[in-house]
């Protein structure tokens, strides 16, 4: 009798017990983990692994800044502050217009490595 894997929270509550039950029904640990993940993120892509990771990997380092958007947003806001980036400054989402302050400082390391100290 297959136990319904249920929602994420239920899985957390039952913890060890659920795992034991699953082992008895020969669900591999990997499948159990997959179920946990799908419970937390139901919209996760159908393709296992797949192109999403690869595209993200290929686009590493891409930094977009549109001076048109930036200036229009500034004009619209007038005196108000532009919405600034959240804690993760590298993530640009929604209405947020990247500002020069948000871009991480790109300074070369002029300091000698501490390994050589």
């Amino acid at each position, binding site marked *: 009798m297959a136990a319904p894997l249920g929602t994420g929270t239920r899985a957390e509550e039952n913890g060890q017990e659920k795992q034991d039950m699953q082992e008895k029904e020969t669900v591999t640990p*990997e499948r159990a*983990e*997959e179920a946990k993940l799908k419970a937390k993120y139901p919209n996760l892509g159908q393709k296992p692994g797949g192109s999403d990771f690869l595209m993200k990997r290929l686009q*590493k*380092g891409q930094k*977009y800044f549109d001076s048109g958007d930036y200036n229009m947003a500034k004009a619209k806001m007038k005196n108000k502050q532009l919405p600034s980036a959240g804690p993760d400054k590298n993530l640009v989402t929604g209405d947020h217009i990247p500002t020069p302050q948000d871009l991480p400082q790109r300074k070369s390391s*002029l300091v000698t490595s501490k390994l050589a*100290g």
Partner: protein
Amino acid sequence: MAGVAGGGGGGGSNDFQWCFSQVKGAIDEDVAEADIISTVEFNYSGDLLATGDKGGRVVIFQREQENKSRPHSRGEYNVYSTFQSHEPEFDYLKSLEIEEKINKIRWLPQQNAAHFLLSTNDKTIKLWKISERDKRAEGYNLKDEDGRLRDPFRITALRVPILKPMDLMVEASPRRIFANAHTYHINSISVNSDHETYLSADDLRINLWHLEITDRSFNIVDIKPANMEELTEVITAAEFHPHHCNVFVYSSSKGTIRLCDMRSSALCDRHSKFFEEPEDPSSRSFFSEIISSISDVKFSHSGRYMMTRDYLSVKVWDLNMENRPVETYQVHEYLRSKLCSLYENDCIFDKFECCWNGSDSAIMTGSYNNFFRMFDRNTRRDITLEASRESSKPRAILKPRKVCTGGKRKKDEISVDSLDFNKKILHTAWHPMENIIAVAATNNLYIFQDKIN
């Protein structure tokens, strides 16, 4: 307690033990991103040990000559040279930020008094010459000792400059810059056994270079699909065969390895051999492909075998057998039941490297919590050791570590949930001939040696 034997000609000894030798780097709790070590590599003789970091810097250590007055200490590694190899760049045309992080360092075999190495970041490979200067000329005719030009009318006699000894100065200079050949991010470089060419591999292409020529390179593998939406796999690592200059391998994100022969065609899109372990379709999950992605591939010194590292295991392949590896070693199988959280914190994408010892009898790879693992291929024994400041007394023997997976935790064991996933050992190197290993633990470099009896 018996450890994993390695190295030398003599084969495994049962009394083998690893001892702490040295640790380099700061003890700060706050690690600056630039100080994170990103590559470690011994040269062909093992006398030089190079490290690269995220700040684009290279530090080279040299082994000291053994000191007769201190017979118990084998040669120690001390700083020989340090230089800034790569700087951060911004490609304005593509809005692409190019990190200065050194992805790989590969030494060239030594051909004269100077040492040469290749270092690469995501886009540019550089050939560096490291040379020593221990003499300087004195007694020039046209300038004073302090460099000021002498008044030519005051010169009444000619002298021949003489060479005088000076304090050793080690200079590093960039001799070649191999740029603009990679659209995607370079993950590997490999010097060919012909000592004239080398390959560089990015996510979708592999290029062949001549060490003397920087304005041209040949594309030898191109797996970019015509339609990027059909992209299903990328190249993760590549290496030349140690003896056959026409053979190289490359690994993929799908857990496969292709061996190519450059004699068969100019463009090696069609492989000569295809290595893949059959998968049990019933055990397939969302994570299967991600954890099968190969993060490193290394030929054995003999050239008969190659080793691949995927997320949970290390596999040894016989080049003559394509349908499955001849040996499989579990690095941290207990993580299989943690894949969900490892996916959420991105650790599942960590790229661990692996290495052989000089005689190919043992292999080593890193794990989490500053643990690293060694496997003896002959005895099938494995050991888990830790790179930590706590066990950093000179010649202190490293105690084997154990991760407990079940309910009852024995004393000295550590439970899976207590592992620190921020302390990852991704880069390790084994001296080409002796039992000396270098282990990079974030911003610290540990050097361990076998116990001298």
